[in-house]
């Protein structure tokens, strides 16, 4: 397994090519080239209702029209998949793995175009957009590799006169409910995991990033996934998402999004209805309120840089983002003062600008929610820094609160925006204690140069992904399997060795090989 290499933007030629593709994509966007329609049985369906997907950096700009599926379309899709499920489940695993490699290849061939669409529709800056695409490619290659590993049946124990075999089979029908913050990588990872394990699969993309998902869905079909093994259903989550979660034909649900929706899915999925074959398996990745500890002896150059990027990269809209910093002792004053100064000068701007550090939030609703929250929090807490933003676009200014009370909502609730809360503690042990005072346990970080404290963090700072002396976002498939526990999710790590098993049902077959007094072993 080799990870796809990120684009080296230090090379002028790469920057120029990337810019050129953005411009070409912009032309196609303005010509109405991109649209999203439900894909059922391999066919694009025009539906009665459509919405326009827009550019968060400039909401006057339309990215494309999105045709919303309704419940009838869901039923059609389920019918088609029920027909296709068996034959897909019986397709040799190696063939399914090869199809994933073709999906990866399909994305490679359109790599910069996909990045450009991510920049426009999801509002991610250049590097983040490229990172999204390579992560999607990595998921395909890695899960293909993993399926090759898991596919062969194996003998549990070698016992005379009997064969004991253990192997995995698909669960049946998979439902993928995807977020907008990694508009390609996450839907792709979840979808291909479900497909490669032999489940007929529905992808329900996030409303805000349906166009990117539609391009991905097209690549999936072009790579050779049979028309009745995959359905793409853009639409309203509260309408069709909820309908599909409840549906008796769904066997496995894979969700990434907010804690509220995730817990709702887990609850609903647990209700068994008449005619339902399986108890639904739910894999849910739900969010975080991730803390970085800056030890008294930390290298502040690295700590300020690492926290700045972890908190404000992609405007804090990553489940792995840093939203709390706990600073030990005398490091507090210099750290806070340097990060506030540094935050002042990072570029807040449209995602198409290569230098943009802080991009807009995904939509108007998010922007208003966060602006109101910041107004509310600033009455109770010390807002040490508030940045400025362009007028156009769904921007919110990067904000840094200091001396934050660790029992407050600001300290405990996920905001999903460039809002950072800082607090001071007197010892490293206390810092870990405060860091863990959270309902979530996704990522965490430590900047320290004390071997003893680093060891303590390994042991006690129990989060899904712990990063030492570096930024806490940007987990790489296979290298850093990603996912959390507690209210951050159920299920094992994406891009890790236990992920695919969740889409599979293990079976054991025991065969008595003894016939009429002879056994093959003794002949």
């Amino acid at each position: 397994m080799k990870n796809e290499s990120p684009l080296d933007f230090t090379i002028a030629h790469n920057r120029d090519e990337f810019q050129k593709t953005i411009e070409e994509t912009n032309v196609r966007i303005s010509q109405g080239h991109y649209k999203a329609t439900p894909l059922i049985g391999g066919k694009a369906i025009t539906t009665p209702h459509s919405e326009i997907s827009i550019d968060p950096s400039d909401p006057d700009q339309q990215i494309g029209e999105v045709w919303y599926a309704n419940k009838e379309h869901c039923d059609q899709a389920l019918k088609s998949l029920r027909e296709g499920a068996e034959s897909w489940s019986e397709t040799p695993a190696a063939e399914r793995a090869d199809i994933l490699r073709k999906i990866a290849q399909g994305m490679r061939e359109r790599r910069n175009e996909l990045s450009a669409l991510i920049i426009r529709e999801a509002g991610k800056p250049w590097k983040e957009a490229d990172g999204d695409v390579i992560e999607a490619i990595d998921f395909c290659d890695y899960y293909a590799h993993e399926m090759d590993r898991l596919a062969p049946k194996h003998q549990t124990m070698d016992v005379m006169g009997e064969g004991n075999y253990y192997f995995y089979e698909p669960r049946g029908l998979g439902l993928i409910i995807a977020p907008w913050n990694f508009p390609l990588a996450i839907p792709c990872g979840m979808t291909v995991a479900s497909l490669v394990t032999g489940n007929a699969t529905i992808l329900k993309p996030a409303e805000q990033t349906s166009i990117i998902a539609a391009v991905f869905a097209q690549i999936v079909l072009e790579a050779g996934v049979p028309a009745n093994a995959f359905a793409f259903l853009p639409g309203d989550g509260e309408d069709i998402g909820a309908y599909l979660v409840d549906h008796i034909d769904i066997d496995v649900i894979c969700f990434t999004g907010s804690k509220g929706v995730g817990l709702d899915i887990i609850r609903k999925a647990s209700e068994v209805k008449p005619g339902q074959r399986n108890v639904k398996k739910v894999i849910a990745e739900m969010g975080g309120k991730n803390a970085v500890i800056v030890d008294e002896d930390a290298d502040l150059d690295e700590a300020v840089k690492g926290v700045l990027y972890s908190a404000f990269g992609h405007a804090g809209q990553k489940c792995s983002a840093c939203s709390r910093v706990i600073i030990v002792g005398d490091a507090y004053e210099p750290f806070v003062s340097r990060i506030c100064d540094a935050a002042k000068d990072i570029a807040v701007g449209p995602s198409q600008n290569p230098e943009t550090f802080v991009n807009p939030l995904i939509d108007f609703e998010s922007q208003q929610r966060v602006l109101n929250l910041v107004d509310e929090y600033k009455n109770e807490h010390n807002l040490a820094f508030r940045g400025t933003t362009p007028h156009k676009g769904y921007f919110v200014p990067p904000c840094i609160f200091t001396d934050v009370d660790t029992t407050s909502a600001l300290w405990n609730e996920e905001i999903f925006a460039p809002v950072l809360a800082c607090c001071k503690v007197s010892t490293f042990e206390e810092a870990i204690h405060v860091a863990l005072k959270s309902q979530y346990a996704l990522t965490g970080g430590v900047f320290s140069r004390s071997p003893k404290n680093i060891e303590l963090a390994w042991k006690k700072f129990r989060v899904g992904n712990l990063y030492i002396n570096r930024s806490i976002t940007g987990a790489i498939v296979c290298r850093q399997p990603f996912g959390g526990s507690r209210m951050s999710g159920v299920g094992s790590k994406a891009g890790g060795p236990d992920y695919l098993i969740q889409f599979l049902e293990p079976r054991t077959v025991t065969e008595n090989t003894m016939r009429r007094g002879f056994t093959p072993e003794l002949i």
Partner: protein
Amino acid sequence: MTSNPTAHSTKLHSEIVSFGREIFRDIGEEQPSAFNKNYWTGRIMEWSMTQPDFKTNMFRLVDVLPSLQSSRAIAAHVHEYLSESAKHIHGLVEWGVSAKPNSLRGKLTSAVVKQSVRQMAQQFIAGETPSSALKQLRRLRKLQLSFTVDLLGEYCLSEKEAEVYMNRYLEALEVFGKEVPAWKESQPIIEGHPGEISPVCVSVKLSALYSQCGPLNYTKSVQVLSDRLRSIARMAKENNALVYIDAEDTAHNPIIYEVFRTVFGEKEFLDFPYPGIVLQAYARESEEILYSLLSFAKERGKPIAVRLVKGAYWDAETVTSNQNDWPSPLYSIKESSDANYEKLSRVLIDNHEYVLPAFGSHNIRSLAFACCYAKEKGLTEKDFELQMLYGMAEPIARAFSKRGYLVRLYVPLGEMIPGMGYLVRRLLENTSNESFLRHTFFDDAEVEELLKEPHLQD
């Protein structure tokens, strides 16, 4: 008359070897203070070269020390990093590495360790401020050594920090411009040498002057840094000082070269004497960069100075390219950098009417090559200079200086915290298995081996 190239190269080679031998003979038993085992630094170096685990732990300890305030914290770190090594290294225990952090012995340990690291740093860093460095700089001039001053700093993460850094440069130029020319030692070391037009010279790390400098902000980086370099160049002109622009990593170098060409190609700065730029021989693209610098110098109509170095970002760049699965922009084998260094030296010497070559190295073979090839091409000691790092290789510097070459030392100034990063790099450089200084002063390698012609491999 056409000469046989093989015979020619054999002749040059034998000259290099005999010249190199003379240098080695001049150095004799003399050791750079960094290797002197009577000093703390020397002992640390010795242990580092024989015990790799100790080396990692010791250098990590050195890196963290200045950020530690309390003696308890220092004692705790000393214990955490070194107590394992103390089991194998005789002599370490007497520093109290196993003392309890809160005990009196622990507190004494921290005072000793902090003081020792400060001394070690002072060996490579001439002072915290321009004024405090004057004494050391004057000492260098007295020894017939020229200097260029570099200002160490923390990462520049905000414009406020960029401004502080900028002001330090302006202040340094003012202080040196006022003080240095008045010294009697400021008489040119070599009369008529362009490097001695002024005794004052600074080396500027451009990326530290703009917090948002980077390839994705290319246009603005060039524009902002050009503005800031103009201010420095004006201050340098006012104070009659020379300026070198340091090269950095591959991500920043294209910006740095463009800023250099932009500012020193402007009418206002055409009379700026020998504006300096750095070329890194470990970079695969270095030859191409050199030719573009040469055409710039020709266009400008007035010569520039080019400091040829091997390059100082090898570890960081190798890690970056490795983690991202990018082809490395640098030669992976040190011998290739050495071979390329000689190739580039030839080009510089062949073009000395457009450039003042400055050969920056501690490698006697590399320097001997430059000196011998220059001589063969009819250059005199006024046509180029040699550069070395302050505190690194005094015996080598003096040996060349005594033979009539202009030797300029690169002298860093700065506080303890940013100074530690620099100190650790120097220690690494001295103790690395590939280090010429280590081979020369610690391993007692054969002179023939040290003077062998390097070949380009990869």
